[in-house]
């Protein structure tokens, strides 16, 4: 099965012709989100159906480097390449409102995150997968030994920046966050464990500090922030922790996916990734939007 990452329309496996037709028809109608996706992922130059079909085929091609490299390359291009996500650009210098926005929207992201990880556990009998997810839940959500979980570091950051955690819990996430969460819910409810893994853990690449070999042009955030006297301690702790752990998290998950992918439909894994990356793109905008709301207060 192939899926349109924009609108979730479904096509037969490998039927790139019908998928291309879908895009071309919607582009002819000037459907904004489809046109935007084509402009950013395929080309801003109009193509005929034959050219577009082979462009889509090429887009899905994993002959070079397999699924792990395909996901990393796609992710880097969309979020940390030559034209990075605007949120990444915002993170190249410290901004208190942006970090406040981050604290609020990311709280809701993490609430969904832990649900996705536990659904993966429930959908497989593979030991290494279950253990990986348990470790992930511990470090993101529960803590390990004396180490605080990521969600606690996030809330402490929010508090140092002047928010009450009760206020964070009670805030309604922005529409872009809600859209993303509903899509992740849908993926976790309807997909098998390996697709959910591809959808969720690929997102941890955002903070991975070892992506330069894959063409990353920007760090997740300016590492100078970790030494800057202008940056509050809780922000340093929060960012520093993610920086270290998301590196091993994301690569380890991709290694697991690469290990088992041949027992599953490859295109399904790719589509789960694309659907999730599309949602993540919107979600990162919510962090900025919330930051802007604080800035204008």
């Amino acid at each position, binding site marked *: 099965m192939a899926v349109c990452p924009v609108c979730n329309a479904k096509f037969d496996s490998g039927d790139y012709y019908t998928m291309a037709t879908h895009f071309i028809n919607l*582009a*002819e109608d*000037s459907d904004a989100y489809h*046109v935007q996706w084509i402009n*950013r992922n395929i080309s801003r130059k109009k193509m005929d159906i034959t050219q577009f079909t082979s462009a889509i085929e090429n887009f899905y091609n994993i002959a070079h480097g397999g699924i792990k490299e395909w996901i990393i390359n796609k992710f880097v291009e969309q979020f940390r390449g030559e034209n990075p996500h*605007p949120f990444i650009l915002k993170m190249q210098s410290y901004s208190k409102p942006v970090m406040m926005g981050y604290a609020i929207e990311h709280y809701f992201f993490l609430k969904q995150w832990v649900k996705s990880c536990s659904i993966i556990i429930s959908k497989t009998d593979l030991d290494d997968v279950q253990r990986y997810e348990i470790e992930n839940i511990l470090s993101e959500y529960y803590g390990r030994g004396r180490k605080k979980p990521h969600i606690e570091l996030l809330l402490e950051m929010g508090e140092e920046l002047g928010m009450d955690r009760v206020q964070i819990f009670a805030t309604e996430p922005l529409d872009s966050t809600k859209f993303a969460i509903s899509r992740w819910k849908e993926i976790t409810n309807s997909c098998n464990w390996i697709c959910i893994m591809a959808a969720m853990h690929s997102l941890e690449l955002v903070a991975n500090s070892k992506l330069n070999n894959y063409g990353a042009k920007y760090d997740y955030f300016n590492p100078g922030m970790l030494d800057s006297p202008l940056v509050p301690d809780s922000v340093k702790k929060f960012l520093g922790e993610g920086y270290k752990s998301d590196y091993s998290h994301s690569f380890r998950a991709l290694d697991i996916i690469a290990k088992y992918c041949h027992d599953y439909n490859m295109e399904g894994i790719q589509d789960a990734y694309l659907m999730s990356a599309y949602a993540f793109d919107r979600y990162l905008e919510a962090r900025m939007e919330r930051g802007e709301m604080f800035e204008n207060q």
Partner: protein
Amino acid sequence: MKCLKTNNENGCALCDATWGEYYREIENEKMFFCCNICADIFENMVNAVKKETGWDHIDSVELHGNYSKGRNCTATSGNNTFRYYFRTYSDGRMMEFKKL
């Protein structure tokens, strides 16, 4: 009749993409856009420039950049020029607009 020109001559007045076929009249010019979001962005930008400068008409806009890094622009009206930078959310709402 006065109208508005941009440096994007191949396609969409904002992003130069040749997909889509969406027209909107802005500053008396029937302009081509790839989608309604690009049209919204362009229209909001025109209004922001007019508000900032007090001009009642814009003759031309030169845009350099993209959705990721935002756009550096030069607008002209008669003998006047105005340089600015702006960036939007992907649904078209203005994120940042500043005079250069």
